[in-house]
């Protein structure tokens, strides 16, 4: 494991950037959505104001809550930070690179999901269990799809280490890989499901019929809720960065070139801005699906991801 100062700086910068920028991304998506719907919108800084408001409030914990309930927000936030550290957003020479396996990433995301589901069931309210069950249903289907997408990228770059994969992908000459196109579409569908966006889940609803993510965090308040919300924003950020790293890796600094890092930052911001706007567009033109259709939706994503794999194996590696 080679330790370079540039790499360490890049790593720290990435982590801090992720934590700081994630609410901004969330705010930007919501703002775009409001603009697309013809409304004025609450401004891109709303999530920051929400976080500040929550942090100063008291955290109320229910009577029957176990220590798990209090610990989970920290676990969640920590897992998301670790995920953010693994995904190469600015540069590819990260100290974590050897451990930054695609499979480990999926594992960390799974850990986060399980922790939240357990916490939701901890109190014993109906909404919590409802949300947990639905979340597990989505996760059960989304995880294989995500794995398949990552495997496709891994097959193309001959390694599961994300940093190396991104480096390989950003270095190849302009070529048309249909498998990556399929994988991209599959990844978009999986991200929509995992981040609780329309058409899978409405992040603004509190109706019993339609909640998934919101149902799980219903019992949290104060700093716990702040951490949970921040973790959700981080999750969106992480997914966006994975997508950018795999499918649009132009601009990511190779190795630890300091100059490259300076160039990478505006590139990242620009790509995130475009990605956020597109997400808002998708949310605006789609309607939320019935929860029974969610397996179909994710099944389609899984199938697309497998198709990407097959197409790569048979068409491009031949």
């Amino acid at each position, binding site marked *: 494991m080679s330790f370079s100062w540039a790499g360490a700086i890049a790593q720290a910068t990435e982590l801090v950037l992720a934590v700081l920028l994630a609410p901004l991304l969330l705010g930007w998506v919501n703002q775009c959505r409001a603009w697309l719907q013809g409304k004025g919108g609450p401004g891109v800084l709303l999530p920051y104001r929400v976080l500040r408001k929550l942090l100063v409030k008291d955290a109320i914990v229910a009577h029957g809550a176990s220590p798990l309930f209090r610990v989970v927000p920290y676990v969640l936030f920590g897992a998301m930070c670790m995920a953010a550290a693994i995904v190469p957003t600015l540069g590819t020479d990260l100290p974590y690179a050897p451990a930054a396996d695609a499979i480990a990433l999926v594992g960390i995301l799974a850990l986060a999901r399980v922790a939240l589901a357990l916490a939701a069931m901890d109190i014993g309210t109906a909404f919590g269990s409802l949300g947990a069950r639905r979340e597990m249903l989505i996760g059960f289907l989304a995880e294989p799809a995500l794995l398949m997408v990552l495997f496709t990228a891994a097959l193309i770059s001959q390694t599961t280490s994300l940093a190396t994969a991104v480096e390989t992908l950003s270095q190849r000459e302009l070529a*048309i890989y249909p498998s990556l196109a399929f994988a991209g579409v599959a990844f978009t569908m999986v991200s929509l499901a995992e981040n609780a966006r329309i058409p899978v889940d409405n992040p603004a609803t509190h109706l019993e019929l339609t909640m998934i993510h919101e149902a799980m965090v219903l019992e949290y308040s104060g700093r716990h809720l702040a951490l949970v919300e921040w973790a959700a924003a981080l999750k969106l950020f992480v997914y966006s960065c994975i997508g950018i790293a795999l499918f649009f890796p132009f601009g990511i600094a190779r190795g630890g070139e300091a100059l490259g890092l300076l160039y990478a930052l505006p590139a990242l911001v620009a790509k995130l801005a475009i990605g956020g706007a597109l997400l808002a567009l998708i949310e605006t033109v789609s309607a939320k699906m019935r929860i029974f259709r969610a397996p179909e939706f994710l099944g389609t994503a899984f199938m697309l991801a497998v198709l990407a794999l097959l197409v790569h194996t048979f*068409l491009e590696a031949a």
Partner: protein
Amino acid sequence: MSALLTPALVGQIINLFAAVLLLVSFAMLAQRRILSLIDLFAAQGLVLALSTAFVAWATGQTHLYWSAGLTLALKVLLVPWILHRLIRRLQVKWDVETLINIPTTMLVGLVLVILAFNLAQPVSELAGTVTRGTLGIALASVLLAFLMMITRSKAVPQLIGFLAMENSLFFAATAATYGMPMVVELGIALDVLVGVVILGVFFFQIRERFDSLDIHHLEQLKEE
């Protein structure tokens, strides 16, 4: 102009067309609504026509331009128009019911794709065209169209599945042999057109008799 294209790029663009064709075939498999199904069928025809025209341009086989034009006229414009008119007059607009649910259908479709790729592997090595890698995809599309036919319970989607099968076979012909001789292609086009017209008439007969185009009405004849 053709010198612009390196062989690698040509191969990649053709692969792209093939991949989009496969995607459209899967989309048809997963589609619930008949109107969207017809539009997807037209899209499939368009992809076909474009890929044929591209192969014509890249390899200098000018007869393929006629092929592409024929496909465009018939499968992108004429047949979907006939189908739309048919649907309007039959007043058929409901969702397609499937015999097995959609995720299972997709999984079976995936298995078929793997099967088709394996089957076509030895054959595509022997073809002499630049597009031979896509023979597996063509065969996969054929099998997917076939799957669509047998998992639908209404008459119109079964017809579309049949037409999609012809489309995929046409793509296989382009992939393996730079298309069939013109006279054969004209014959096939004529068959397709006549088939659609005849079936249109036939659907009216079914509708007249059963007041519905549900295939379940047509399952009474069984062995005793």
